[in-house]
């Protein structure tokens, strides 16, 4: 089985978000970039398939040279080979077209991406890749087993979960649940040393349209101060929620 894990290079979840160049760009100043958490759950599940079922695991990202430390981290965690498509990932469809090209040329059976990246939250790349290549697709995936060419996936739905039976080739939009938080791996020194010698292919993008463009960003409006209610006067909170906030 040949697996491709698609990785987004995103600001760490603790990052303060600021914008620059007249609010047209995300301000990367002082920001630590990491593997998108939803992708990291998928990468860790892929490592399980590698170790238990002998799968080959490659990772791919669409991004400039600045994303290479994040890709090397994925290699240090245990991916065998990496591909960087040398383009800025500013539109979901454009990114999907780039990944589809890599998947088609690489003959992957299973593609694992995150449900969404935690920066632009598009949540569209896995579904678009699957549609472009006519592969099966399961989104918000929280469990995955592969047996030969058969796949059983658990999907989170509003208010519960659903078990889905399908076949390879398959694209997964994954999230926490594919593995647990405690299963995530911190690369060890040996992994980091080995990652330096692993193949990282840089390929140029194919022509593809960008149907959406972010023109401008803004931060949420500053919030007014909290209204404190005395712990001995809880009735006042009920009153405020009913009469002022109109929330109950």
């Amino acid at each position, binding site marked *: 089985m040949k697996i491709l894990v698609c990785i987004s290079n995103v600001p760490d979840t603790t990052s303060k978000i600021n914008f620059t160049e007249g609010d047209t760009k995300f301000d990367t100043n002082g920001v630590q970039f990491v593997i998108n958490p939803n992708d990291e759950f998928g990468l860790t599940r892929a490592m399980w398939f590698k170790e238990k079922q002998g799968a080959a695991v490659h990772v791919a990202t669409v991004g400039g040279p600045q994303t290479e430390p994040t890709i090397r981290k994925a290699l240090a965690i245990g991916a065998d080979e990496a591909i960087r498509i040398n383009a800025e990932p500013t539109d979901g469809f454009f990114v999907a077209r780039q990944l589809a090209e890599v998947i088609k040329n690489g003959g992957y059976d299973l593609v694992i991406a995150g449900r969404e990246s935690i920066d632009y939250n598009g949540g569209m790349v896995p*579904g*678009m890749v699957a549609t472009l290549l006519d592969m099966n697709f399961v989104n918000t995936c929280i469990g995955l087993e592969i047996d030969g060419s058969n796949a059983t996936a658990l999907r989170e739905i*509003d208010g519960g979960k659903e078990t889905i039976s399908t076949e390879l080739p398959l694209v997964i939009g994954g999230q926490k649940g594919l593995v647990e938080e405690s299963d995530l791996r911190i690369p060890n020194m040996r992994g980091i040393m080995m990652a330096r010698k692993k193949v990282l292919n840089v390929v140029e993008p194919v022509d593809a349209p960008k149907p959406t463009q972010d023109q401008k960003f803004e931060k949420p409006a500053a919030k007014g101060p909290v209204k404190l209610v005395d712990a001995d006067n809880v009735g006042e909170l*009920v009153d405020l929620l009913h009469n002022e906030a109109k929330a109950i």
Partner: protein
Amino acid sequence: MPVLVYTESDKGKFKKNAFEVASYAHKVAQELGDTVTAVTINANEDDILGTYGVSKILKISNDQLDTFNAKAYANALTQAAEAEGAKVIIVSSSADTKFLAPILATKLNGGYVPNVVAAPESTSPFVVKRTAFSNKGFAHTEISSEVKVIGVSNNAFGMVENNVSASVEDFSPALGDADFTTKSVDVDKVVGKATIADADIVVSGGRGLKGPENWGMVEELAEILGAATACSKPVSDLGWRPHGEHVGQTGKPVASNLYIAIGISGAIQHLAGVSASKTKVVINNDPEAPFFKAADYGIVGDAFEVVPKLIEKLKEFKAQNA
């Protein structure tokens, strides 16, 4: 050319978000000087959509679609869009719709923008405001493709009544085996309880509650309010509550009218995930907890004393306002 809207139903009954997206579609149609056509799948009482400005309904009745299937639903919607010649398609932000929308957009060669929180700022160029960076920011995004698929955030635009009389037409999309290559074999869903995605009120507990055995009062509070229960990331990581209840940046987003956080200090990731809620209440014994900076109302106090009192007061309130 009409604006097309996919109005979701569950076991025949429209979801609340169906009326929100219909209202949004009506607003867009007004801007464009068009009408609204809705697509329904195995829904009952379709004409109620007229209340929210829908003038035509393409009614799909197909047993094969009783269980949600993203590919088949997307194919059915694609055929409806093509039949109507629709260039603007409005959908919701439910888990099912976020599953099908990228498939739909790709089939129609359209640009897709999810998490939209307001009516378009302009329709030429077509620009919408959406959340980004997990609610830590907003983006103003232009959609330049001819076909545009817009995913409206839950509880953002609201329901707006615009009474028109709606005509209902049966629509039978051509679906084949190729549309059903993923099969639902089991659905394990809580019934009769509000879900985080749909609830008007969400009551959430954090590590301050000390252990899973103390969730009784959270559930009681939720029951009185008709609320969904949720939890912080550490609580789900510790296994005190199921993963499906984890709200925050890497969990579920919350966009309720009222969010009550009990014993949650308010890590930046948690605050991002719940920031779309309209009114936020925090109950915490630490006055320095970051959540107090993000909340509208707060009580500094021991949750084990405050919450039972709140339950009591809410019972009195409900009795008076029944």
